[in-house]
């Protein structure tokens, strides 16, 4: 399918049989905040406090392989941080993106390591470079930068030159 669907209503109307959409609606329709289908990729925006359950839901719907999580800093707009989880299905041979939006003061979200242990390093990386906390992570320490480093380098307001 090559068309672009930019609203939740359009996605629900055109893709009601999509396994991930179906599973999320069957589990908790109000957790699905927004949805879009763009450039062949389905993005489901999930309410921040529901991400761990949403991950478990899509996992049992056949999206069995966690590939990647990373953040985007939309400074200075609000909500500031966007987390993008990329999850692959070996059965359907396709990928979905779960998206979570977080505010700038003390951004925190539940860790999905109980669902996919492979998220361990990825969440540590986001914690290190963006300063987003993952509650329930077994070892939330800096991974790239030294342990005593100040600041989070991939934030947009992190100075790239001069004295810090």
């Amino acid at each position, binding site marked *: 399918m090559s068309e672009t669907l930019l609203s939740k209503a359009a996605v629900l109307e055109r893709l009601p049989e999509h396994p991930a959409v179906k599973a999320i609606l069957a589990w908790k329709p109000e957790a699905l905040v927004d949805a879009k289908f763009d450039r062949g990729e389905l993005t489901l925006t999930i309410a921040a406090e529901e991400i761990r359950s949403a991950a478990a839901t899509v996992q049992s719907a056949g999206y069995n392989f966690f*590939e990647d999580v990373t953040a985007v800093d939309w400074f200075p707009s609000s909500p500031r941080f966007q987390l993008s989880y990329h999850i692959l299905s070996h059965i359907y041979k396709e990928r979905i993106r779960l998206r979570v939006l977080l505010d700038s003061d003390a951004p925190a979200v539940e860790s999905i390591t109980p669902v996919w242990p492979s998220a361990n390093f990825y969440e540590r990386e986001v914690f290190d470079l963006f300063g987003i906390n993952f509650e329930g992570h077994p070892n939330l320490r800096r991974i790239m930068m030294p342990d005593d480093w100040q600041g989070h380098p991939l934030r947009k307001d992190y100075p790239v030159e001069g004295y810090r």
Partner: protein
Amino acid sequence: MTETIGSPILEAPAATGAHDQHMILNMGPQHPSMHGVLRLVVEIDGEIVVRLYPEIGYLHTGIEKTCEAKFYQQVVPLTDRIDYLSPMANNLCYCLAVERLLGLEIPEKAQWLRVLLAELTRLNSHLIWLGTHAMDIGALTVFLYCFREREEILRIFDGLSGQRMMTSYFRIGGLSMEPPLDFHDRVQQFIKTFPEKIDEYSNLLTGNPIFRNRLQGVGILSAKDAIALGVTGPNMRGSGVDFDLRRDMPYSGYEKFQFKVPIATEGDCWARYEIRLQEMRESVGIIQQALDGMPEGPITADAPKIVLPDREKMKTQMEALIHHFKIVTEGFAVPAGEVYQGIESPRGQMGYYIVSDGTAKPYRVHFRNPSFATLQALETMCKGRMLADVVAVVGSIDIVLGEIDR
């Protein structure tokens, strides 16, 4: 299993009762068998590994942050330096992602050349893996043989792009230049003799009792653990998970090629060794198909505002000169949106996530590199084995620290 990649090892637990105290051993960051600057903190009971904790970040250069300050076309040389043993795979992944953001159609000849080069890169990368892995185990001869063949691949890359390792040959919208006239013959000559060379390595190693004993039954990873810990590529297929992005979610015209995806179910170092040897044979088949069926036509997309013009045109046509000037000084705007492009790199599933805000510079670039996730599975593979097996396992999972730390 979740706790296996949990807390760091800071000090050894005190001795209790009749048991001796465990010892903490640092392997690396400077250690000949660590394939770069990987530091492993190992807690050992005599010679048995009790816990193992990888400490990374020694090679962190912040490439993702650097990308945000560059034009889209200026990021291509940076991608070479992420996984420096398979530059073309990184170039390919980045270019495909940006082309999807732009909605750009790539001519067929460029696609076939990209597939050919991606497979040559796979051979190049697997040759280094085989050589260094065998050398870690003590079979030095194979290392020299592998580097002999790798040298020929690097010479082909040199003739193609002017660089042996950091090729930067791929461009957004196609390739940087036509391949030289002798390119076809050199590649044909190389892959004609290469299957015999694989037999040669196999004769030295497969029947070698020392090599076999060091690998068989060592570093076992179950299919369930492989998926739970994010292991991809040959390591995952060695554990019996039948998935390959080239076949299952084809990109860049891979659906037009016939090849097998080797699978093994044992999940030990030996399975991974056999799978990579078979993958090399399959790659030779793909390269042969690409050479035989190479279509005619241009090697860049017809998009003058994105692809730099020929030198010839730039010197003779006013329009081309203006386009050249605009691209170099201002870049080209990419429509807002986000794209995640996955490819099967020599080490596993590589993914580039690019977020565009509609300007000429990427708003956010993120690389999902296979070695980073594979490293999480190291403790599961080494636990309860001898310390010397750690060296065999690290060699067999084929990690590159450049792409772990980025």
